[in-house]
């Protein structure tokens, strides 16, 4: 028996058959139940875990249809339109679902109907029933009002006027019903009867393309999975070619025999359709995830889906059969690194228009960088106006965040330091150039009052060159400036 806290009282939220046989009911206080039967076993409810379990089941139901939606805390919608023939008809499919859930240890009730409302009612009030299209009314008529998916207060007020079954509500005139009980009631009724369309919003986006393979004998070995991926990718390639597309994001779904579903996604930095390359990407991903994927008793369904696709540019090969595109190798290499080590494993530097040194270059993941299939020509450099004839000298390495240094004294108030302490070591300044004043970007929000920086190029007594700055100015009434190490020169 499971209890939950409701308005400062522990109440029964769920109970098993044996507890039911003891005349315990949902919503009953735990104290009352204990008084009736002191020996009952009470477990605290964990809605989070219930939710996770339901989501796991939804993942598993993905094997029947890509359109799986959660229904409250205890139900799942499966939109099986167009999928039933794959499993040998509606009845066979329903039996298969029920049998598999039963084997996993779940007590499941299912209903199949043309509308979500009718299916909901069939599952909860009739159990294991297939409602042919057009017979929703006959199904609903004898059922209690709860079968209409309406709120408890509407239900109570309907019952207070003597409408106790769905059939009675259907027979009543519509206008007074709407006026008295609100439009929700009629909306639910129309949806259940198929007069209004009701969309079931799937939990996961539906992949534009996916191929799958049911296996009579479950696979366990990673090498076998990789081989399956390649076989599936061959099928996928045909579809992609027909659509003139290549995959930008691929997901591999591994359905384990006991119901767990592993979802492995890889991204590509340019559209991809070559099975061998897809297999290599998944090889890296599977190698990286080797510890995390528990094959258990094996996977009996493997599905490869294209989550995102993009137009695939065909490239003309020259007479020797070579395609002039160095970028493809790099892109594949970057994808493999990314598949293994994560999105930020390969970075690309992009120049940004900013005079703040740390903002002037953005390092972004390779896959997000603007793709350039051909190397940039010399000519497009000329289009850019020359900024300055002598660009200011910039360090070759920049610290991610400027490191504070201790400066005991400067020769002049605004001048470079004579020595400084950085990372607990003392450096003597041999020569200095500067200052170069860099003002904050005062037009940015939150930086209106940021202090200015005076940068100095410093060479220490050993010949190492650094880039230091003083933040703020010396002056009365101002906090004394702080010094930072920002980068190193060659």
């Amino acid at each position, binding site marked *: 028996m499971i209890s939950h806290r409701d308005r400062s009282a522990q109440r029964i939220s769920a109970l098993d058959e044996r507890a039911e046989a003891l005349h315990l009911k949902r919503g009953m206080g735990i104290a009352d139940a204990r008084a009736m039967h002191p020996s009952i076993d009470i477990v605290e409810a964990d809605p989070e875990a219930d939710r996770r379990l339901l989501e796991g089941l939804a993942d598993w139901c993905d094997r029947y249809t890509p359109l799986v939606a959660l229904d409250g805390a205890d139900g799942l919608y499966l939109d099986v339109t167009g999928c039933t023939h794959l499993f040998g008809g509606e009845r066979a499919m329903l039996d298969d679902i029920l049998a598999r859930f039963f084997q996993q240890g779940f007590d499941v009730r299912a209903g199949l109907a043309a509308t979500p409302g009718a299916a909901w009612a069939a599952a909860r009030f009739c159990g294991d029933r297939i409602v042919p299209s057009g017979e929703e009314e006959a199904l609903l008529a004898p059922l209690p009002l709860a079968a209409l998916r309406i709120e408890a207060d509407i239900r109570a007020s309907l019952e207070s006027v003597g409408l106790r079954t769905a059939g009675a509500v259907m027979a009543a005139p519509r206008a007074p019903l709407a006026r008295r009980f609100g439009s929700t009631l009629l909306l639910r009724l129309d949806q259940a009867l198929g007069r209004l369309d009701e969309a079931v919003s799937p939990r996961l986006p539906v992949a534009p393309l996916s191929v799958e393979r049911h296996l009579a004998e479950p696979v366990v070995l990673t090498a076998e999975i990789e081989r399956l991926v390649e076989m599936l990718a061959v099928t996928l390639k045909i579809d992609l070619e027909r659509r003139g597309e290549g995959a930008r994001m691929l997901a591999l779904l591994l359905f384990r025999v006991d119901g767990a579903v592993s979802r492995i996604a890889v991204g590509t930095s340019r559209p991809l359709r070559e099975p061998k390359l897809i297999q290599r990407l998944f090889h890296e991903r599977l190698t990286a995830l080797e510890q995390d994927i528990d094959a258990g008793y094996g996977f009996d369904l493997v599905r490869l889906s294209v989550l995102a696709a993009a137009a695939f540019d065909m490239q003309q090969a020259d007479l020797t059969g070579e395609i002039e595109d*160095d970028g493809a*190798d*790099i892109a594949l*290499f*970057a994808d*493999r*690194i990314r598949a*293994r*080590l994560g999105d*930020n*494993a*390969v*970075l*690309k*530097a*992009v*120049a940004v228009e900013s005079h703040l*040194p740390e903002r*002037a*270059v953005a*390092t972004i993941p*390779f896959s997000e960088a603007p793709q*350039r299939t051909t*190397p*940039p020509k010399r000519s497009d450099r000329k289009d850019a106006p020359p900024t300055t004839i002598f*660009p200011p*000298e*910039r*360090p*070759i*390495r*920049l*610290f*991610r965040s400027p490191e504070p240094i201790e400066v005991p004294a400067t020769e002049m108030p605004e001048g470079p330091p004579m020595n400084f302490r950085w990372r607990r*070591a003392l450096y003597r300044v*041999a*020569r*200095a*150039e500067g200052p170069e004043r860099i003002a904050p970007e005062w037009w940015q929000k939150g930086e209106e009052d940021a202090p200015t920086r005076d940068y100095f*190029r410093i*060479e220490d007594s*050993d*010949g*190492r*060159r*650094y880039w230091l700055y003083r933040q703020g100015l010396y002056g009365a009434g101002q906090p004394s400036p702080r010094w930072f190490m920002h*980068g*190193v*020169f*060659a």
Partner: protein
Amino acid sequence: MATSAVARETVFALRRQIAKIEGTLPERLAAPAGERPRARADGDAGGPESDIAPDITIIRRGLAVASPDAFLPTGVERLDATLSGGLPKAALTEIHGLETRNAGAVAGFVLSLVSLILRGQRLPVLWIGTSEIFREAGFPYARGLQGMFGIAPEQLLFSEAAKLTDALWVAEEAAKMTALAAIILEIRGSPQRLDLTATRRLHARAQSAGRPVFLLRQAGEAEPTAAPVRLIVSAAAAASRRTIAGPLAGSIGRPAFTVSIGKSRSALPGQFTLEWNPDEHSFEERREERPENSVAVVSASRGGADPAPAPGTVVAFPAVGSFASGDQPSRPQRPAHIGPRRAG
């Protein structure tokens, strides 16, 4: 004649294989004495170099060397002569910095080499580093690289790995690729994992792809390595800026590096002070500062003004060469390697 040529080809092919397995540079192979005249009579075995080194047959064709010019000349005559032609292009090259705070100079030196490689090419450069080194020594700053070395931001790829194992894996995968102009792998310290086997793997991949792999070891110890060349780089005080009126007092001019050779199959240890010219993208040697070094190195290693006969004398060095060419220098020889480094 034809059969002997075929036989000779076979011998050379086998020797190339052996050279590849052993990690010797195939360019330095000597032909057996009996075959030399015939090789020269054919006129094709030696290639263009056969006339400058009469007692060496240089093998250039085949798989072992991907590009016709196997060496990257630094442009500094004395250093090139000491390294007999420059740094090997299709190889792993180790570049050490004695302290992490030298990272700027070490990176600067490597980037100038990369800049020399990139001259006229638009292939990307991959810089792999562990998170630790990027945190300790700073992340490469594309603006500075563009200004100083002419490497455009779009040519730069960075890979940051949290673990050394991952960084090594990325480097090994990258070293196989010919679509990259150069690979820089930067690590800190002397981790156990980067041992002789790991460097040998990197070296073998670099050899087969024909691309240079620079292994930057900040604050690293000199350990057995498969790399044919190990250089130790530290910062040198920059010269003053040059103006029309003469040097500008108190200014910081072009970057300068002190480079000493820690390991090389052909060169004796030496120390050089190089200055990088960011405008022309070339190295210049600064000689006036340390004349005592330059004299010692040149006279000890070469002894001749003409660099042409230099490769010939290498053949006469088998004893020294075998010390250095082995990937695992035996205990007694190791101090000979690191000795000069300590001195420098």
